[in-house]
């Protein structure tokens, strides 16, 4: 039998019994759409997380901190050493001090962090409003606050504080043995130019040069080390650990996040899979009924020169076609459903002041997989009816009423 003829013969049911055939396709479609939608949700959530935390530089940065034993310290020497390591592109330290921040006559405790502009990229700090400062001297009095710090002053909208002035009193690290705490007022008026989206930690960020000009910095609490490429990330990490420092890499976190989302997707796909199994059973049922209905026809075909293989092939082709169309329909329903739900949620979210997000994502490879997968499901549901159809005795088939 020619492929074109086989296709023609195995799509007859769309003409002879269009309602039932399309309902079968729809049944498969609904099952597939459950898979598409749930897995799409998994992809969407993963994307949201990664989009928020991942920048190119961030992934290639290692966060180095001193060990809790303080056996080694992160001082200028250490930074110089890191800088001269092979495969290290850049180093960006963070020095922090306890301080009092005063805004609008209100004072509160905060962590004052002195950083270079590159730190923002390497640490993956995202802004809720405004811009991070640059290393340019004209930015030397610009500071950044975390979203959590705004709450100290009862500021709701991050935009409200942009351009406002604040002042700092720093409590330098207690010199061993002195016990006394002196407070140093930072000279100058500082303008808030940006707010990070961190709602957990209370801190203010100030250009490192401004800070070091007024306060002696002996050690740093964190250093971001930017590796030249992802291939050398592990080498650099091992070298720094060998010097006795603690190292964490965001890329590890991303990896872990991906693993977790992989797990979540499997669970979601499992739920969708149940729906798919239900529809596959429905389709199997339809194929079996079709078989009974066509028993006579099969007998006739067998007596006019159709081989058992031809019959088997026709049934399988029919099942694959229905499965494939079911997959297509399912993708349509799933994607449309996801987009509609997303739109509705975003309308609600933006109404209550949240930000719009893409909750669903449908990568091309995933859709390609679903297409093939649904055809395979169709094929599997067709195997049993097809084998039975091909093994019916032609005489019994002719006499079947």
């Amino acid at each position, binding site marked *: *039998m020619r492929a074109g*003829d086989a296709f023609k013969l195995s799509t*007859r*049911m769309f003409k002879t019994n269009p309602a039932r055939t399309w309902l079968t396709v729809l049944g498969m479609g609904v099952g597939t759409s459950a898979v598409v939608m749930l897995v799409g949700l998994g992809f969407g959530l993963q994307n949201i997380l990664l989009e928020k935390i991942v920048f190119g530089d961030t992934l290639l940065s290692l966060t180095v901190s001193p060990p809790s034993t303080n056996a080694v310290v992160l001082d200028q020497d250490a930074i110089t050493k890191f800088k001269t390591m092979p495969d290290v592109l850049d180093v960006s330290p963070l020095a922090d001090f306890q301080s009092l921040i005063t805004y609008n006559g209100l004072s509160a405790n905060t962590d004052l962090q002195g950083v270079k502009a590159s730190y923002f990229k390497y640490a993956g700090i995202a802004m809720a409003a405004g811009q991070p400062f640059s290393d340019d001297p004209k930015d030397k009095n610009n500071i950044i606050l975390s979203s959590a710090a705004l709450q100290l002053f009862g500021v709701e909208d991050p935009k409200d504080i942009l351009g406002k002035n604040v002042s700092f009193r720093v409590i330098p690290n207690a010199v061993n043995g002195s016990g006394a705490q002196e407070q140093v007022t930072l000279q100058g008026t500082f303008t808030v130019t940006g707010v990070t989206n961190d709602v957990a930690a209370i801190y203010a960020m100030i250009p490192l040069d401004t800070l070091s000009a007024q306060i002696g910095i002996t050690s740093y609490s964190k250093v971001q080390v930017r590796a030249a490429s992802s291939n050398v990330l592990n080498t650099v990490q091992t070298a720094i650990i060998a010097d006795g420092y603690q190292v964490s890499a965001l890329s590890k976190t991303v990896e872990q996040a991906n693993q977790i989302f992989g797990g979540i997707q499997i669970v979601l796909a499992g739920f969708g899979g149940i729906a798919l199994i239900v529809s596959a059973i429905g389709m199997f049922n339809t194929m079996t009924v079709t078989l009974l209905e066509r028993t006579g026809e099969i007998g006739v*075909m067998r007596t*006019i020169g159709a*081989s*058992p293989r031809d019959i088997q092939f026709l049934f399988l082709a029919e099942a694959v076609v229905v499965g494939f169309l079911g997959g297509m329909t399912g993708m349509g329903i799933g994607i449309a459903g996801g987009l509609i739900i997303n739109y509705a949620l975003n309308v609600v979210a933006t109404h209550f002041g949240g930000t719009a997000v893409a909750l669903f994502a449908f990568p091309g490879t995933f859709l390609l997989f679903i297409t093939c997968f649904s055809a395979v499901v169709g094929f599997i549901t067709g195997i049993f009816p097809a084998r039975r159809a091909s093994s019916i005795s*032609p*005489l019994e088939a002719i006499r079947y009423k």
Partner: protein
Amino acid sequence: MLEPIIKVNNLRIVYNEGRANEYYALRGESLEIFPREYIILFGPSGCGKSTLLYSLLGILPPSSGEVLVKGENPYKYDWRQMVKFQRSTVGIIYQSFNLIPSLTVKDNVALPLIFASVSPGERNKRAMQLLKRFGVDQHADKFGTNLSGGQMQRVAVARSLVNDPEILFADEPVGNLDSISAGQVMDTLEEINMKDQKTVILVTHDAKLLPYAHRVYYLKDGTVEREVANPEKKQIKQIDPGTSILSEIEKLSRIYPYATPQELRVKSIVNFLTQDIGFDQIERLEKNVGAFIDGKLTNQGFVERLAKGIDEGGPEISKDRAEIFKEKINIILKEAREIRSYRDNFTAKVTSPRQAERIAEVRAELIRECAMQLPDEAIPRFEELLKFRMRGFIQQEDFRRRLEIPPEEGGLGVAPDTARTASWYLEKLIGQGMYL
């Protein structure tokens, strides 16, 4: 010496063998069918004729015995050889046509070629040729279910021939068709046998089809009872002179197709005892009487036809006798019409003086035909009795008994044999009247 195309040796087919519902469909039958023969397997339902056909088609394995088609046993084929056998050696048409309803007429005919991977251009050409030949090409693009039964069967014939098989099987091909369509399909099959020189094997229970065959196998209860060659066709199977003789029993079997040879012998003897004309004459006489009562023959024509000699195709009945026949038939028809009118008026509740005249008319005829001797005073009672019977108030038996009962007991006191003849003749008239 001509080799048979199909040879069946001791074929036994048992359904559900060894189980409680075991059924012997064929009990060890043997037969031979020769190339280009037209064979009819004839018998009542359940006689095993279809079983034999499907066994020859290669889809019903024998319980024992052997089927050889062109010298090979199809039940020893693997599936590839089987497909080849079904594609090139045999073709089949069914009683219920079995067209695939979801395909067009053209695709139905081309379907065997589709399975054989023939290119669309070639198979459509072949299908259209056959459709044209059988006069259904104008329906080529319709779906099978939109055709009449006769058209569907002609499409099925085209489908069975599209592979150009050597043997064409037909399972009650005209069983679902009106007589005109049946005639067309049977003529088509005959043409396929004569012109295309295909071997045709047809299964039927309809005796009207028997003249189409070269030979007929009569089956009953799973056995081939007899094999009868059609004297009107030039035989293909060589029959040595003297080995077969066409006797009256064979001729009788055409008139009484379902009768066993024993029953046919009995009929032959009873015919000899009771009638002075033979079955041949009876058959021809019936044909002419039929034409006469249908009004297709004049009185004169009828008499002349009856007088025609056996050699001229007539029943050879003497002119005097033919005249008597003619007279009697005319009287019977006339009286039958009176009875019919009487009953029609009676059921329509029409009262008319003509009703009484009709009773009197029938009464007079009964008295004349049966030479009844009735005193005048008994006439009203006789007419009363006739009225009851013609209205259906009493049965034939009641009528006869009341004729016999003595007058003092309320009857007419007619002699028993006269009473029997009169009631028998009256029943004939009523029967004719009912089916006028």
